[in-house]
């Protein structure tokens, strides 16, 4: 077999063009982290079994460890680095910080991207809808409860409600 050659392509990531050269068998996860230095997207199992590598493609959350980078060319790629507006965190990020919904934080970028896509589609998700939506993102630390609460808090704030985290969520009951 002839040695594979690098391809040169421009990706649209978080609204900005990134021109990179990469081998065509590289996953989007590899190219994001290793060619674009966008290391916010994490690598966990690299087999589809954890959700740490979740990014959005045209608004839909997918696993970047199982997508070839070449297939993302021409699409709108969004990673955790694209959530904040400059120095201003998104409501979802705020709510995760307020509630301590990240402990080691390794699962957090993937969970934020999945939850962000949910909130774009559904302004008032029920607890069950949030659980279903996050069923592909594992968290080893939090037990997931504060994550569900943080998504609810962010949803309420996005709807313009003056929501604050409950005392029990922060200090325990």
């Amino acid at each position, binding site marked *: 077999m002839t040695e594979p050659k690098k391809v040169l392509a421009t990706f649209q990531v978080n609204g900005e063009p990134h021109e990179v050269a990469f081998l065509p068998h590289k996953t989007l996860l*590899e190219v994001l982290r290793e060619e674009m230095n966008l290391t916010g997207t994490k690598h966990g199992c*690299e087999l589809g079994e954890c959700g740490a590598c979740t990014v959005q493609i045209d608004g839909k959350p997918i696993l970047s460890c199982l997508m070839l980078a070449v297939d993302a060319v021409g699409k709108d790629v969004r990673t955790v680095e694209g959530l904040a507006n400059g120095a201003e965190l998104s409501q979802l990020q705020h709510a995760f910080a307020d509630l301590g919904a990240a402990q080691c934080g390794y699962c957090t970028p993937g969970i934020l991207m999945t939850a962000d896509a949910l909130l774009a589609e559904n302004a008032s998700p029920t607890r069950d809808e949030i659980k279903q939506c996050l069923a*592909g993102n594992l968290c080893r630390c939090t037990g997931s409860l504060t994550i569900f609460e943080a998504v609810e808090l962010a949803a309420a704030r996005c709807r313009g409600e003056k929501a604050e985290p409950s005392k029990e969520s922060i200090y325990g009951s």
Partner: protein
Amino acid sequence: MLRLPTFTYHRPKTAAEAVAIASEHGKQAMYVAGGTDLYPNMKRRHQTPTQVISLQDVPGLHAVEVLPDGRTAIGAMVTLTELEKHPHLLQHYPGFAHAVREISTPLLRNMGTIGGNLLLDTRCSYYDQGHEWRESIDFCMKKDGAICWVAPGSPRCWAVQSSDTVPVVCAMEADVELVGNAGTRTQKAGDLYRDDGIQYLTKKPEELLTRLVLPAPGTWKASYLKLRRRDTFDFPILGVGVCLWFEGGIITKANIRLGGAGSYAIPASDSEKLLVGQKLTDELIAAAGAAAMKPARTMDNTDQDVYWRKKVAPVFVARALEACK
């Protein structure tokens, strides 16, 4: 990082072009749809095609269409997420839609397709492991090795049929359309599979699955029930697909297929025989369930205890029948 081996990537623009590339490269070539089965397998070096042929640009594979005769044709590249939310499928094919929703996780269903699900590789605890793990046991018959660790005296591989839609699609007697070098052919979905963990498909490697065609809604009901450890991620370790045809409350035909219990979706023939000509009463459901113990040929190569999995087969068959009431 667990990385893919190198390969040449093709994105043909027509089915004919795809088949031509696959034919040219023979065993070296594999199709890819969503990649959620193929890429993990390539990372673990189970499957090592040097030519990967993506179907994303092939026209005609991306739509769900109600045919003039009432049947529903689903393009092979339609994602599982689209199917689980599709109003026509939810209304007229709830058993099938439920099976789709039971697959993997929402993120994987955003990527995975129905075509890939129907052609999913068989699974086994001695095979679905990293390369080093498999090397440490000197591999197995399915890939790179000589013997079967599940049944060391056996001349064959017993890897398990693990797709959630296959049992219910076979029970419904759906059709599949395939395009090959000799043109297009249609066959019963059930005839796609073979009782062998390695050669688990009957189709030729270069044949492209283009559509799954579900029968027109009528006086039949189908259901699917899945057993797994966690409510998400996990493959079925038992998946019961049932389809019953009724006439005036009497069952005229019954198909029961057991997935996750052998290398293909096994018919529970004794249970089917008990049902035909009868009304679906609670007593009959219990009897038909009990008769499903024998065909559930569970082996010690999936999650959970092998004897327990066999013992719960009657319970799951009874519950799947109950759902057809």
